[in-house]
């Protein structure tokens, strides 16, 4: 179970940071046309779309994999919700993401990029709460900070639009780590 969890977290971290590689390849105009003579006449955007689709597919896979994680739930009892307040976090990742993009756009050499990517990967992995992957938004997920009745803050990834903490019920959560949960 522990191994699955570790792999899943590595996978999530990769998905969250891999867009930096895509941006870099687009900037450097690295295309797949040279691989085969059949592809030589393809417009560049085909390569770019292809690059972009890799993290999207990986993100989709990570969502499928998350079914294997340990169960959890936050259930309302006698109609009383256990959540005190909700804070939307969809935009919270924007500053860090813009940071990633600017780095990718300003890096000139491939080995610099690899080094920067490695550092970002490491810190994203270790920071635990920062599995902000904007690609989750593509699949209809949203990010929220929830404060439970015992004043403990958790990070939740869910498809629902949460607004009113009074009637919340999460019978089917999966534990990504001790602070981050995803609703299935």
């Amino acid at each position, binding site marked *: 179970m522990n191994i699955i969890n570790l792999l899943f977290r590595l996978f999530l971290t990769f998905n969250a940071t891999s867009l930096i590689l895509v941006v870099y390849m687009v900037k450097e105009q690295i295309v797949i046309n040279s691989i085969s003579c059949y592809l030589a006449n393809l417009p560049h955007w085909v390569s770019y779309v292809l690059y972009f689709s890799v993290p999207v597919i990986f993100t989709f896979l990570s969502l499928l994999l998350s079914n294997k994680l340990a169960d959890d*739930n*936050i259930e309302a009892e006698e109609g009383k919700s256990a959540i005190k307040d909700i804070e939307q976090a969809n935009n919270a990742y924007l500053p860090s993401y813009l940071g990633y993009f600017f780095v990718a756009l300003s890096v000139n050499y491939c080995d610099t990029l690899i080094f920067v990517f490695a550092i970002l990967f490491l810190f994203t992995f270790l920071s635990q709460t920062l599995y902000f992957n904007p690609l989750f938004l593509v699949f209809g997920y949203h990010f929220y900070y929830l404060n*439970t*009745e015992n004043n*403990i803050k958790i990070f939740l990834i869910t498809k629902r639009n949460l607004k009113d903490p009074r009637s919340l019920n999460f019978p089917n959560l999966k534990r990504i780590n001790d602070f981050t949960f995803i609703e299935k």
Partner: protein
Amino acid sequence: MNHLLAKTRGRNGDYFKVISNSEIYPLPDDLDNPREYGTDYKLEDDEWFAITGFSEKEYCIDFLTRRFISTDYNQLPRAQYTNIEYLVAYQTGYYCFQKLTSSQVINRRYFSMSEQPELVTNAPIILINQVPDAIYHKEEDILYFKKLTSITTIFRGIYELYREATQEETEEFLENDFINLADDYSAENVKKANRKRIAMAQATLQTFNRRQKRQIFSYIREYCEDLEFDENSENFSISNEEDLKKLLYGIEQRYYTTKIGNERRLANSVSPV
């Protein structure tokens, strides 16, 4: 809503989540037959001792008074498994406690019965009891249990239920043949500390036979020289709290002599080794 948590030992002991979404303990169907706790009462098989208004008691734990939310607890790290003090399962309104003793942690080689058996080594398993040691029903605020000694480490201080003798028990104890009350000393004068000791001493005395009782009395006389003893009627004269305390300590065999140095001592607290 079913969750299993583990409480770890030590100063940094905390509650950790273990398993969710599976029922750990089937709830007993005989909880409607509760009895108030009494030291001398022996439960029938279908009975439970019950403490009502449990959250008001001083030995109630904070864990029971706050709301249970499974995401508040961290997952139990692998290294902490050997450090579990007790298990507690939350099952929609009921908390089931199980004290973990070393006999319930099994460190053996085993293989499971299957088409392709595989030898498993170095994977200790934890046994879950058929019936929990204690059950707390949140809504009714009642704690049910079968055996007080198995939950004393979970609810610290609950032992006081056991220790303090009632007025009747105190009177009964003072009426024993080996006690001669003097100076108007009576059961009314017995203070709380001695009442606790009486409850324990009563239980100890019951395990002694005649010969052992006689041995105990000579042992007490040996250590408590200032405690008056009447040779003819074979009784101690008790005239105040201090005398009673000495006698009670004697019954619990709290006096001893050091092996080296031959110093006579009183054991302030005792626990079996």
